[in-house]
């Protein structure tokens, strides 16, 4: 049995604006949705849960993560109840319901809390550099670059990276485990053979790297080239570019800093520089593209921006920008500018990773593929039971 809680709608509204209570249950949103099917029947079901306050059902639902905000539901909703935006709000709500520390909830519901946290973390980095930085030499390397590793030795930075990565993984993984408890473990009606967790694992990997589900938003019969020409893959492509750049850069910084942060200036075709350029290009293009979309508000999924969307995009953009400047100052032989920019770069990068990855917007990079994985596991299990 579930308990009704009419006040629960107010709780959801803390995570975003919403007009979902206007819904008159016509089912139009579910019928026009290209991603919904009879195993995952959304968004109307979720609107109903939200209006009635069926908290347990919402907490156990994967549907918000399976929604990619194509926007058809919102543009055609006869009541202008904006189901797509509710799904977005529920993703914020779920992110904080998975987070056992309660920090995600704070970040999502209080601007002041989020900004303060950013400043404290930035200050922390600043103080670390003030007290522990290496010698600020103005002497240049033989090929005219700045001796960045004297100021900030990669070994020290890497140690910091590892500590940070440990924190991030611990929180993110424990949140994913919490998600697993909510969506599978606590459901009494499910009996899942262990083998399914392995056989369905491919979905996790495919969707983490490809985000191909975005392209399911378009179901018209046009040929692939017409779709490309009409820009139907543009959003997916830019998103993919941004995500792959991020993953690549994160791997290089955390795993291969000795190779990535060098004082030696490599020729332009060196893999270190090419990979770095690809990533900065992807991040720069991606953040600018999404910022412009959110300012223009022309397509449905960019119409409603939460303040956390803006913090995330701004931090990512500024990280990229300062990173590019560090690179330019370093090969341009400007020691002091390089050092200051490097500190600034880390002052933005560190809070962004610490806040966004486990507790805020960036966590969707884990929740989305895991949701697809879990939902495939559930579907496969249900298929097996129905066959018996």
């Amino acid at each position: 049995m579930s308990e009704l809680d009419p006040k629960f709608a107010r709780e959801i509204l803390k995570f975003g604006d919403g007009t979902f209570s206007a819904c008159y249950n016509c089912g139009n949103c579910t019928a026009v949705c290209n991603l919904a099917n009879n195993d995952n029947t959304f968004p109307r079901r979720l609107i109903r849960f939200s209006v009635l306050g069926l908290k347990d059902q919402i907490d156990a639902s994967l549907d918000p993560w399976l929604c990619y905000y194509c926007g058809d539901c919102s543009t055609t909703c006869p009541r202008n109840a904006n189901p797509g935006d509710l799904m977005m709000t529920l993703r914020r709500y779920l992110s904080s319901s998975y987070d056992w520390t309660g920090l995600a909830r704070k970040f999502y519901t209080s601007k002041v809390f989020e900004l303060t946290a950013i400043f404290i973390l930035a200050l922390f980095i600043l103080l670390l550099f003030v007290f522990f930085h290496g010698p600020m030499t103005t002497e240049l390397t033989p090929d005219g670059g700045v001796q960045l590793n004297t100021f900030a030795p990669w070994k020290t930075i890497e140690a910091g990276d590892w500590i940070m990565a440990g924190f991030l993984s611990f929180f993110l993984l424990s949140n994913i485990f919490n998600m697993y408890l909510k969506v599978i473990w606590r459901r009494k009606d499910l009996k899942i053979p262990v083998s399914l967790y392995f056989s369905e694992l491919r979905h996790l990997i495919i969707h983490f790297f490809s985000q191909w589900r975005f392209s399911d938003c378009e179901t018209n019969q046009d040929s692939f080239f017409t779709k490309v020409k009409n820009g139907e893959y543009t959003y997916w492509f830019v998103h993919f570019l941004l995500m792959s750049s991020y993953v690549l850069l994160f791997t290089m910084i955390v795993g291969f800093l000795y190779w990535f942060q060098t004082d030696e200036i490599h020729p332009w075709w060196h893999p270190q520089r090419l990979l770095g350029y690809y990533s900065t290009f992807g991040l720069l293009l991606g953040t600018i593209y999404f910022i412009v979309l959110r300012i223009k508000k022309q397509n449905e999924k960019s119409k409603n921006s939460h303040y956390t969307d803006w913090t995330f995009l701004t931090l990512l953009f500024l990280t990229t920008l300062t990173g590019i400047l560090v690179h330019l100052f370093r090969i341009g032989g400007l020691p002091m500018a390089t050092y200051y920019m490097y500190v600034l770069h880390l002052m933005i990068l560190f809070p962004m990773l610490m806040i966004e990855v486990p507790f805020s917007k960036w966590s969707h990079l884990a929740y989305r593929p895991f949701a697809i994985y879990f939902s495939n596991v559930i579907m496969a299990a249900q298929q097996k039971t129905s066959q018996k």
Partner: protein
Amino acid sequence: MEQNMKNSSVKVADTLILGGGIAGLEAALNLANTGHQVVIVEKDLSIGGRMIHLSKVFPTLDCSACITTPKVSEASRHPGIHIQVNTGAKKLAFDAKGHWHVHVQTEPRFVNESLCTGCQDCERACPVVVKDEYQYNLVGRKVAYIPFSIASPRIAAIDIENCILCGACEKACVPGAIDFSQEPVQTEWIVKSVIIASGFTLFDPDQIERYGGGKFKNVVTAMQMERQLVPTRPFNTVLRPGDGKIPDKVAYVLCAGSRDGTVGNPICSQICCMYSIKQAQLILGALPMADVTVYYLHIRSFGKGFDEFYQQAKKMDVSFIKGKIGKISELENGDLMLRYEDIASGKIKEAKHDMVVLSVGILANRDIEKISGLENLELDPFHYLKQRQEMSNPFKTNLPGIFMAGTASGPMDIPDSILSAGAVSAMVTKYNKGFVESIINSLTISSWNE
């Protein structure tokens, strides 16, 4: 007191009624029978409005034309009623004595009304065929034509926009009634009161892309289905327009263009549920083997006998499924696939039908806003005329001496339209009787909104 000039004249009456539909006719007859001089100004070629084109009325299944035509002919012959068809109001002005000066313009029909006998010789002679708007584009008509068989007045007209000026009708017309030299005629009516009975317009479903946007041949509007069910129907049976096949599985899509904020009409049209239930029953009468499914959001059978009528349709095996149709797609053979969420089971379903009827909603007739001098007329947010005091002083606009009847004030069914006409007749009688030039005038205006 008539001053006749070339193509323009000034005339006097008690009340002018804009619109010769069932509400306008009912009000006109009530007023004329109590001794008022009434003018009906109708923009169409015939009076009778929408109702004269309908098959049956719900929930009694009485013949619609059989109720309308006696009123139409009574009004046409009544000594107290003057009817001007093919005429539109251009300007309204309020004078110092409290009269309304209504400037109307009669468009030329290029047929001499007193000579035409309605023999249809011109229609047979005319070589040009265009879509017949009175059959809702299901079939064609000639350019020289009698609007429809029970039109009143039953006089030919020439649709000059599509005319090729070949002169065939002129040669065929025995009484010589064809007159291409006609020009617009202006009339200025000086009246005490005006009733706006301008009716409604039908929602155009072509703007709903996901229902085919007007491109699917076997998706019709409810009015097109209605025409297929009347005695004066264009085909002699019910068939789908795409290929002339007699349909086996007909779907009704309710709330197509009403209760929908995305198409700018968030309110209920009040009639679609019931006319769809009525048509479903009539289809089962015409095609006993057909399956009819009605996809609804909420069946609003609120009137007397309405719910019994709904239950009767269910007993006749009309299927009712709760769920808004999200998408319609056309198959190669012209059949249609309807995708919806079945609210009862919470499952997404697809159903194949060979004909789909969109139960389109109704919208306010916004032609009223184009009349000069009515800029201050108050409208509600949905562009219907606003009733200042719906309870204490119904059917009065904010302008002194201007009343409203029928769907000009909002969506309503036929009995309610007739009822409103009855009510407004009583109000206008009172207003006209108490009207004394210039003495009462200031009093009338100040007491108008009390």
